[in-house]
């Protein structure tokens, strides 16, 4: 048993550090320090830099332009990326639709869609949830009716993250009412510029537009945009969920946030309370630190078993729950350390670099919006309660 990197892995780590040092502009890194939002332009520029280095398809097979990295290399990349304060790759194209296309799509679809996803030429969004299909996702009602060479799609998708930037949306749609409700679901790719597609913003508790409601009214979708077979969409989506969920625990980013929190505690900016000498608060910080250390090793255990070719053990099922609990615990601590400066609501100073006049300490007014927004993490991707149902059934056999 050891947690050492091999010579090759250490060399790879160097290469990743060099990449971030040379290719990530300081102005981009400053976003994390200053709490600025990454704009769509900054994100795409970063994704293109990764593409030029050959590192865009982190989890993709080599034959489709992926890195072919080992799990340990992926872990090193995520860790260094968080340390370098890089933006995150928007997952909908890279790690959600692309694996379904290269696993279940036909040759024509692979050639048509994968290169543009890899090169960050197209922006994808996800059309799964509906106003009346959340945890019970299979109850979805968006309907695709075959009409010659097209499907006619009607219905509404919701919580569509960054859908207002998207060129394409991948959807679970109902193509049949026969049999179980899962069996009538198909996987359809829809051009967002199609007539009849409308995108309406949903403003979240942080006052921002991140998610949307996407409505389809008699939208014509060519049948060649169906992935795999009709009626198998649920299976494809499920395979993906259990398939490759690296970094789902978000350990690297939480470590970075914890380290930044200790910096604030050690040198509290003017206006922030001195919580370093508050033992009650410090005890919460240290408990988060310890839970995070345990989670890091849970993550490494999963990584190690995947590296050696064995299937991840049951411990992999807790990554989402524990990871999101820790993220939210950190959010709470940040709101508290912001003190009275948690009150000002000034989203402009985070959306526009150089916005004046700034309210200082700069991080503080962003702490509460981030906390509000991040309540989503225990809700999305299968709420934590649904995750527990899954563990009860699949791991404990209840």
């Amino acid at each position, binding site marked *: *048993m*050891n*947690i*050492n*990197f091999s010579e090759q892995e250490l060399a790879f780590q160097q290469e990743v550090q060099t990449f971030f040092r040379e290719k990530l502009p300081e102005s981009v890194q400053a976003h994390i320090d200053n709490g600025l939002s990454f704009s769509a332009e900054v994100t795409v520029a970063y994704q293109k830099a990764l593409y030029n280095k050959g590192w865009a398809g982190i989890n993709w097979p080599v034959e489709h332009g992926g890195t072919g990295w080992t799990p*340990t290399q992926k872990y090193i990349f995520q860790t260094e990326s968080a340390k370098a304060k890089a933006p995150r790759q928007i997952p909908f194209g890279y790690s959600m639709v692309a694996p379904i296309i290269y696993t279940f799509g036909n040759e024509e679809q692979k050639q048509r869609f994968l290169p543009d996803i890899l090169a960050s030429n197209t922006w994808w969004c996800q059309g799964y949830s509906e106003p009346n299909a959340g945890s019970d996702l299979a109850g979805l009602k968006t309907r695709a009716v075959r009409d010659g060479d097209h499907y006619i799609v009607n219905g509404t998708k919701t919580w569509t993250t960054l859908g207002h930037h998207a060129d394409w949306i991948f959807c679970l749609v109902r193509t049949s009412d026969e049999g179980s409700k899962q069996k009538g679901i198909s996987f359809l790719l829809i051009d967002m510029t199609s007539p009849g597609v409308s995108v309406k913003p949903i403003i979240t508790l942080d006052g921002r537009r991140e998610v949307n409601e996407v409505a389809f009214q008699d939208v014509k979708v060519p049948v060649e945009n169906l992935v795999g077979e009709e009626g198998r969409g649920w299976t494809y989506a499920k395979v993906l969920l259990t398939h490759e969920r690296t970094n789902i625990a978000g350990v690297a980013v939480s470590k970075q946030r914890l380290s930044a929190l*200790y910096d604030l505690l*050690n040198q509290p900016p003017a206006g922030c309370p001195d919580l*370093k*000498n508050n*033992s009650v608060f*410090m*005890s919460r*910080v*240290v*408990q988060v630190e*310890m*839970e995070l*250390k*345990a*989670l*890091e*090793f*849970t993550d*490494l*255990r999963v*990584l*190690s*078993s995947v*590296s*050696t070719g064995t299937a991840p053990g*049951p*411990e992999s099922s*807790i990554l989402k*729950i*524990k990871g999101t609990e820790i993220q939210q615990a950190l959010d709470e601590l940040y709101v508290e350390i912001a003190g009275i400066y948690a009150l000002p609501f000034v989203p402009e100073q985070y959306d526009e670099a150089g916005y004046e006049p700034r309210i200082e300490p700069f991080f503080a007014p962003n702490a509460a919006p981030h906390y509000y927004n991040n309540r989503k993490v225990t809700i999305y991707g299968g709420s934590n*309660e649904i995750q*527990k*149902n899954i*563990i*009860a059934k699949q*791991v*404990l*056999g*209840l």
Partner: protein
Amino acid sequence: MDFALNDIQQMLKDSAGKFIHNDYDFETRQKYSHSELGYSEDNWQLFAELGWLALPFAEEFGGLDGNATDLMVLMTELGKGLIVEPYLSTVVLAGNAIQRGGTAEQKEALIGGIVGGELKLAFAGLEAQSATDISSINTQASTAGSGLVLNGKKQVVLHAQSADKLVVAARSHNNNGNIALYLVDANAEGVAAHHYPTNDGARASDLTFTNVAAELLGDSDDAAAVIQAVLNDAIVAVSAEAVGVMDKMLAATVEYTKVRKQFDVPISTFQILQHNMVDMFMECEQARSMLYYAAITIGGGNSEEQVAEANKASQFLKWKVGQAARLVGQTAVQLHGGMGVTDELDVGHMFKRLTMINTLFGSMDIHLDNLVKQRQAA
């Protein structure tokens, strides 16, 4: 990076797992626990034959040169049987102290006997005023003629009843305030003992030393680093034991709720009980992960940086295991209903052991408080 077991670890896991499964069921364990000796001497000889007693000792003295990860593997399996044999005292505490702090002559004289199963030891550290703080020691060593003697009182010395020799922490005979370790014959003149059973089925004793002949362990009268290293290993050992106990409690609880019917259905079909068991499962896994971190770190090396990291890791581990053990233990009892609070069922005894483990070597809140103070001082 590699979390797989090596050959020796696999052998330890297999042999200990087999022993607990075949020869150490709950009724047998209770019989040993209630016997006059408090454990089985035959088992002890078997431990020697299987090489378990040789684990932490250097090869030159007949040991296996094992480190904290090896200890973790063995103790996780033994934990599942709630063993009452004095392994922790003889091997992990006192034997380990001799291995780490003793002179070559002392190791030559003692380790062979430990490995062979002839010599049992106990570690006398804490006193009434020290609570759980090993740096609070009043027992005093002093010179008497050509030798050394000890005077003082030790509290709750695990397995002292069966020990042939004691390793005792005391203030140095050089009167410099250092804490040193001394070797004492358990039956020496001037040793008065009050033996009693513990809540978790083992034995412990209060000891009074009155001018008891003693020998300094090692060449140095400053044993602080040796004691800390021994405690780190001991925390790995009892935490591994706790993880084994928790695994077994979770499995027992899942099994019980599947067969226990109320309202005409197995109670395992109730979602709130399912989520309670998932919470147990998550705590088991997080505790196991912390155990891996700590065992790998503590077995890591002796540089100043590595020792600092090891000391941190043992505190993290003791906190996490304390927290997990409380949730897993309490929930297992709750889900067993009335049966969970009977003396008859093993689950209650696992709960007792977990609860006592939290009190050993600093409870979770003591470690948490120490960590907070360290960060405040940084």
